């Protein structure tokens, strides 16, 4: 049975009259990567702050590692690593000195963790270079290393690929996946980069207007965003027979109204047309359909911004 790392119940945070997070109930399981998706101002960062104990909820509760409370206990917070908005860096120090400072802060006894994490994020060779002279991408990578310094069980990353070049994005993706798969770390990660989240996360939380609109697994998201070829003909039975004879593994699905969906043939319209004509089945409709990641996201949150 999967272990629950975090559960929020009706979590609500108001700033004046504005509900940044409203009655949000989520559950995160150990070893999974949760992509937090939402527009600017949707409540992603506020939710992360609430979980990390940086903000105090107006109502609702946070159950962290099995301990239920209005807000997380200090002992449980120590099991979390965060990179929220901007990395916690001292510009006048080197990467190694920043690592050392945060190792002292978190009470981690083994000094070797500093070098190991710097190597992990590709900053082992920065030597005496001050962090103030780092690029945005280097700062982000150091921020991730700092978030990992106490070997957290729950890692919260707010826009971690901001400012990273394509190679850096791939490295962060690999790192996050390996942390979840090899160490059983639970990761909550937000990003505006939907395709990137699609490749990284195992589960998705879609938020809008401070409310949780949908939770779904990668498999469910793939099903929702799959492209397919939709074919219709005057004789649906003949149409289905012709398609199944040509592609026995096509997983053709007959839809209400008699149209047939071919999930693996979105790019093979011409081939399908030739096959049907050869079988003397004349299609009345042949179209590529299905939602892209972006259009699915927009449909969940209620369309494009006015």
């Amino acid at each position: 049975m999967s272990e629950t790392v975090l559960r929020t119940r009706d979590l609500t945070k108001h700033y004046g009259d504005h509900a940044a997070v409203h009655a949000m109930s989520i559950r995160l399981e150990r070893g999974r990567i949760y992509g937090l998706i939402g527009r600017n101002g949707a409540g992603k960062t506020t939710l992360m702050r609430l979980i990390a104990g940086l903000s105090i909820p107006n109502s609702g509760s946070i159950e962290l590692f099995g301990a239920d409370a209005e807000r997380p206990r200090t002992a449980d917070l120590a099991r979390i690593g965060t990179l929220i908005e901007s990395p916690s860096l001292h510009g006048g120090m080197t990467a190694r000195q920043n690592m050392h400072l945060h190792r002292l802060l978190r009470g981690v006894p083994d000094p070797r963790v500093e070098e190991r994490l710097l190597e992990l994020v590709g900053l082992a060779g920065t030597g005496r270079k001050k962090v103030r002279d780092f690029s945005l991408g280097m700062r982000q990578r150091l921020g991730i290393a700092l978030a990992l310094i106490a070997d957290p069980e729950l890692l919260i990353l707010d826009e971690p690929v901001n400012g990273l070049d394509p190679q850096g994005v791939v490295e962060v993706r690999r790192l996050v996946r390996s942390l979840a798969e090899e160490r059983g770390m639970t990761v909550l990660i937000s990003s505006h980069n939907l395709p990137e989240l699609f490749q990284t996360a195992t589960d998705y939380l879609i938020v809008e207007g401070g409310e949780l609109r949908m939770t779904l697994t990668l498999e469910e998201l793939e099903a929702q965003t799959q492209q397919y070829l939709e074919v219709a003909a005057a004789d649906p039975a003949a149409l289905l027979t012709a398609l199944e004879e040509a592609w026995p593994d096509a997983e053709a699905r007959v839809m209400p109204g008699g149209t047939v969906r071919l999930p693996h043939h979105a790019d093979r319209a011409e081939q399908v047309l030739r096959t049907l004509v050869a079988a003397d089945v004349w299609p009345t409709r042949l179209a590529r359909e299905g939602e892209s990641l972006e259009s699915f996201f927009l449909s969940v949150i209620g369309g494009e911004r006015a």
Partner: protein
Amino acid sequence: MINQLRADLYAIGRTGPVLICLAVAVLAAALYTVLQHSLAAGDLGPEAASGVQVLSDALMVSLMGPLLFGALVAQPFETTSVHNSLLASGRGAFVGAKTVLTAAAVTALSLPYGIAVLIGLATEQEFAPAIPTAFSQLLAAGGGLDGGRVGEILAITATMAVLTTAKLSVCLPLAFVLRRPLVVMAIGFVWGFLADLIGSTAADVEGLDALVRLTPFARDHVPGLDATGGDLVGTLAVSLVFIALMGLVSWLLFRRADVK
């Protein structure tokens, strides 16, 4: 709390504000002592006294103390390093560590003035106070330096340093609320002068005088040449309790505050 203190001490050793302020305090104390001798010797006219007093502990500590509160308490909110602090040890430990650290750092700013008094007295030269602070009066009083006198000056120095820190410790809750180093510094600097004025005025109001004596703002607490051991202990106790009270106020203000 220990982890937070260790991390803060590590950061202090590698970043500017505290070390720079301490260096400035040492230089100012040395220069102030030399110039007080020049005033006494007539190398500087009485009209120069107002310029010389800029280097006094009264002004320098009032200026640099709030700066340290801003740098040590408010700065982590700007750099977001407070995130890791709160995850590591919680809000109570964070406030506790910052209270201890800022109190120690601001107290250290006054110590060079006490050491300068010792060195000045050892030279057996004459000194004229540019402004009648406790340190200037000790220096101007002259007298030989035996073991008892050294101990007396060290005790007055420590008491005066802690008293000044206590007066400025209102910057601690300010820093937790405002979280802007420069704003804390500006308000703290003005407060340094207003506090003595308010304390003096309130002490003259019947009924309020007893209350003011429970705070570091009472004139009676400034250790003079004739201060007894009991006076110094009383002043130290009032100062330390006040600093602890400011720590408590900070915690009450911060325990449920949102952190950006």
